């Protein structure tokens, strides 16, 4: 029979298995390592409160993801961060190694992603990092599939425009 001790153990096992993956998603949402850890911790606290009510433990990832999106949205609304700040330097990465990708390209794309409004950014992270379908993304965001399509389209259009503009700048600078 499930009880508080078993819940805590089961919950801890889940977090141990999924913590790093959750941190990565939270980092893509927030753009900051410490904020990502806070977001994951706050979200997991809420998940733990509901742990015994979650019948299908196989879908706990979707539950956690939805909680994280809601939590991040409420942070954004509460602290009036309506314009995401672009980053001139990459956030601290504890184990950063050389990457095959040109670091200039990676910085530039990330800067453009960071400049997206929170809802578009969340849509992009869920569609292109978590690799969710439009329907799964809509459930995570609590909106319609049409809204997801619209947010994705708008975000991609913004990224394309900014990337084209930066290519033109690079060309004229050389």
């Amino acid at each position, binding site marked *: 029979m499930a009880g508080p001790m078993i819940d805590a153990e089961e919950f*801890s096992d889940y977090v141990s298995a999924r913590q790093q993956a959750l941190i990565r998603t939270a980092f893509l949402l927030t753009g900051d390592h410490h904020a990502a850890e*806070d977001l994951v911790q706050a979200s997991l606290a809420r998940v733990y409160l509901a742990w015994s009510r979650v019948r299908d433990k196989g879908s706990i990832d979707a539950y956690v993801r939805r909680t994280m999106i809601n939590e991040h949205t*409420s942070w954004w609304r509460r602290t009036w961060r309506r314009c995401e700040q672009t980053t001139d330097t990459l956030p601290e990465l504890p184990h950063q190694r050389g990457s095959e990708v040109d670091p200039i390209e990676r910085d530039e794309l990330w800067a453009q992603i960071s400049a997206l409004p929170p809802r578009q950014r969340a849509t992009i992270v869920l569609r292109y*990092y978590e690799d969710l379908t439009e329907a799964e993304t809509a459930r995570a965001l609590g909106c319609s599939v049409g809204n997801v399509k619209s947010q994705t389209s708008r975000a*991609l259009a913004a990224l394309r425009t900014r990337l084209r503009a930066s290519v033109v700048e690079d060309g004229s600078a050389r």
Partner: protein
Amino acid sequence: MNDPVERRLADSLHRHVEHLRSGRDLATAAIDRARRIRSRRRAVAAVAGIALLASAVPFSLNLAGDGGNDRTKMDYALSSPSDSGEPSEPEATRPDTTEELRAPEATEPTEGPSEIVPSTPEPDESGPESTDPESEPTGRPGEATSVTIDFGSLPEGQADPEVPYFDRDAGAIIDGGARTPVELNGIAEVARVAEGYAVQTIEERQRLYFVEQTGAVRPLGSGTATVETYAVNPARDRIAWVEGASGSAERRLVMAQGSGEVIADLPAGTMGVVGFLFDRVAVAGDDGTTPFIWEPGSEPEPVEGGIGALATDGGGYLSVVTGDDEEFRTCSTLLDTGTGNRELWGGCERAIRALEPGGDYAVTVDSRSDGMGDREFEIVDGPTGERFVDVEPAEATYFDYSFEPSGAVLIDAADDGQRAIVRCWPDGECELVTPPRTYDIDAAGDPPYVLGK
């Protein structure tokens, strides 16, 4: 994923975090935090039980209109389930509309007359800054982005509107890439339905028509009756309208399929259609009678404590008029009908003019606005009323508002002898969606564009 930008995007996101690690013990920290939240909830619940008892008597007297001295501005403490982060029951009241229309039982309100239920703020320790419920903002807190709308300085938007609109010069309903020619005079309102459009015209009196995507027109309802108010449900497969002129004893509330085939009707009295709540229609009058919510096959359900209604979001949110204050301003409150008419926020300074489908955002105007044109408006958070954008008074006048699925609001606006449709985002960015056309606001002629729903 064939698009090169999408592939670069996916690669970039993965490579950006592939080496990201956290050494914190988040499981233990989360459990400790959850236990503190649980303890605090138990303490607050004990206090709230006493507070609710103390507040119940004066609240009910106020709604009954008793006590002129008690008619003070009502600002409610903000409490939003969407801030809780838990995808539990409160989230279920505003799910994806398509799914919920097939299973309405999950959000059906309690049986019998529904009363407005004051909300109790929940403690919330989430986020980087701990939120003390004692200091939760009330009314209109915080700073919003201030913008002014001036056609001359707005950029041109790149995306077509996601709601239909009527272009009078073109004589057509424009809906994304589709154009439906319409041969009707005096078009005043357009709403998309599953197989066409419900179009209201005003000439000697208001009438309602169904326009097929081919442009073929047929009257809705009796065809000869006056139709002053109507609405379409979120799934676009139901239309509700009230036919019969004001003061007529024959006025009826009609519910029909999206094709116009009537499902049921009932006497409407002095009521007009406010909007849909999933498949139920909310109706209200402006003579102080209680609004009600109705679905064919069930009895109309009064919204006790309300004396009128302003808007719905198509889902569970209903903005209800509750009375006047000592300055004769109309007071209103936003209810969540999916959770027993729980109050979300309200007051007497502002009134909701439009709600985003799904309830994420709302447009508010001065509660004294007469509906003939606003000189300012605000975009606010739907569940809490917190302001995001304050469109300040300038030269422009705003006539109508319609939210797009993306969360932006389209505004039918006039400025400097011209009229156009403008789009504004909750972050304050605004753009022109249609080219401005000459419009003499004082001549009150037909506008060049009619913003739809």
